[in-house]
């Protein structure tokens, strides 16, 4: 077996070093953009086969503009209105509640009879009934350098759940060190409640252990809950298709995204009730709502025009931010602590094991390409299996299939270890360089056909 180093000139080796440096430093964010595009495409591809276990335990209650108009109220909702909403929810006995609402400014204008105490009274009832309630918390010291956080009356009757973090891109951390200490995010907090009553993957023993873990690479689901049609008009929801058909459709949409960049599904994955649904008064309707909410982990969020809390889902487009918490929780219920995640960075470098794997695959493509070129140029063979070697390099297909096989095997191994896949789209695109002569020959016509054929003969001679 020949050492491969001498196959490449010093200049080519230098080029390889530059490519590695570019991959690590990611100038202009080109590599990151490519990674993100690949991850989003795979997320869409896998969304239709996403299991529905978590969907049966999670629900979102959404305050929307329609609710405000129906009740002649405004945003932010007066505390009295909010107290009515939360006491209605309390009557349906959810297992636990997270309110994705930040109570950072008192808008009661100092009127104690109508002030924040009205809402705090209802939150106190949650405590008395043993229903854990978390409120959104920024993790910042309130009042320091103009930073906002939950008002004191609410912190006394609820638990804080962190909703603000940085440095994890689209991923979802379990716990984060903040100015006010170590805090867990809503998904982990609710997952702990879930695990207290059901058999599930053991959550981290404490917030410190949770903070050590990698953030969740959230996988979004596609198929709507069967219960959704019982409380909402979703007649125009896209019907579920076979997984393979969906994959084909996703492939073509990814290729021709400029022509059609519509969302795969316009309705959120998590079972959603609106605040208006909680207002029902007839025993039959109340029984239906109770059936949908009793014992569930409920997240309360808002979708009010111009409030700005939106999250981008690869499957849905833009959704209210509460759905990110709901989907992360869903991921935890489905996979426990084996949730999808990226490997940790290596030795404080801005690169992780996946980057190394991608670079290895790129190096393999470069090596195969070089060997192919040398063989076609009439160079002698490199191994003792002369015939097989000649056959292997007589066409780019075996090399390409080797790369694809490795890519698939690698993806399977990574998936089994709950690690996010490598940049599949990038590797597939770059592997096409193995066909560069064929592609050139095709576009140059007969003239370029001859050298290729000649060189093949040369190899065999």
């Amino acid at each position, binding site marked *: 077996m020949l050492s491969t180093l001498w196959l490449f000139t010093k200049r080519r080796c230098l080029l390889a070093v530059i490519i590695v440096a570019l991959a690590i430093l990611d100038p202009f964010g080109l590599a990151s953009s490519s990674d993100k595009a690949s991850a989003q495409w795979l997320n869409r591809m896998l969304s239709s086969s996403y299991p529905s276990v978590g969907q049966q335990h999670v629900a979102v209650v*959404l305050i*929307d503009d329609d609710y405000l108009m129906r009740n002649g*109220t*405004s*945003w*932010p909702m*007066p505390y*009295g209105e909010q*107290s*009515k909403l939360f*006491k*209605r929810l*309390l*009557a349906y006995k959810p297992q636990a509640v997270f309110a994705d609402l930040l109570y950072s400014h008192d*808008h009661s*204008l100092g*009127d104690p*009879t*109508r002030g924040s*105490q*009205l809402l705090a*009274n209802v939150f*106190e*009832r949650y405590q*008395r*009934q043993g229903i854990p309630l978390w409120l959104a918390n920024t993790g910042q010291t309130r009042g320091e350098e103009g930073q906002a956080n939950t008002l004191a009356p609410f912190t006394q009757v609820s638990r804080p759940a962190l909703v603000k973090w940085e440095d994890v891109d689209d991923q979802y951390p379990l716990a984060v060190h903040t100015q006010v200490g170590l805090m867990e995010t809503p998904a982990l907090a609710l997952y702990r409640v879930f695990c207290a009553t059901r058999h599930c993957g053991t959550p981290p023993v404490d917030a410190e252990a949770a903070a050590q873990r990698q953030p969740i690479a959230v996988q979004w689901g596609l198929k709507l809950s069967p219960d959704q049609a019982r*409380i*909402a*008009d*979703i007649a125009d929801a896209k019907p579920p298709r076979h997984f393979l058909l969906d994959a084909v459709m996703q492939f073509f949409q990814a290729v021709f995204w400029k022509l059609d*960049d*519509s*969302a795969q*599904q*316009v*309705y*959120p994955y998590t079972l*959603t009730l*609106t605040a*208006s*649904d909680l*207002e*029902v*008064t*007839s*025993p039959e*309707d109340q029984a*239906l709502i109770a059936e949908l909410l009793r014992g569930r982990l409920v997240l309360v969020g808002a*979708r*009010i025009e*111009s*409030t*700005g809390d*939106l999250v*981008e*889902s690869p499957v*849905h*487009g*833009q*959704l209210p931010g509460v759905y990110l918490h709901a989907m992360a929780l869903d991921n935890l219920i489905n996979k426990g602590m084996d949730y999808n995640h990226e490997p940790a960075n290596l030795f404080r470098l801005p690169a992780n094991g996946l980057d190394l794997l991608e670079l290895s695959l790129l190096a393999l493509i470069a090596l195969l390409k070089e060997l192919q070129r040398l063989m076609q140029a009439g160079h002698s063979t490199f191994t003792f299996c002369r015939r097989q070697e000649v056959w292997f390099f007589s066409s780019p297909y075996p090399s390409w299939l080797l790369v694809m096989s490795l890519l698939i095997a690698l993806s399977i191994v990574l998936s089994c270890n709950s690690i996010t896949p490598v940049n599949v789209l990038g590797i597939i695109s770059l592997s096409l360089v193995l066909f560069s002569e064929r592609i050139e020959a095709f576009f140059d016509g007969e003239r370029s056909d001859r050298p290729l054929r000649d060189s093949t003969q040369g190899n065999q001679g």
Partner: protein
Amino acid sequence: MNRSLIVLLTALFTQGAWAETHTINAFLADPVTVLDEQGAPQRDLAKKDAPTQPLTVLQYNSALEIVQVELAGQKVWLDTMDLRIEPPLKVVGLPCEGLTKSQAKSSRNHSTIGFGAGCNQ
């Protein structure tokens, strides 16, 4: 004089007859939380200890959706969600409205909502 008195009494009793008396026919929650006039929880009342006879609603605070009743000679407030009240204080049907749709990836809204009239309510 007599005619005026008759008219007055008729008007008075007619109004009384038309005014609806709401009664609590059932306690749905167990226990039922007894509240003060601000909706703050005071104590719990086990369903088995709740009155079995219909209970007259003395007052309705529509802003907080709580009702005042007399329990063991004491006036207390209860959450309407914990009770079955006949005739209902309010009738709201299931809206069955269209579920909120996601927005396109390219959608942008460069504004922030202002405080509305509700903020001082």
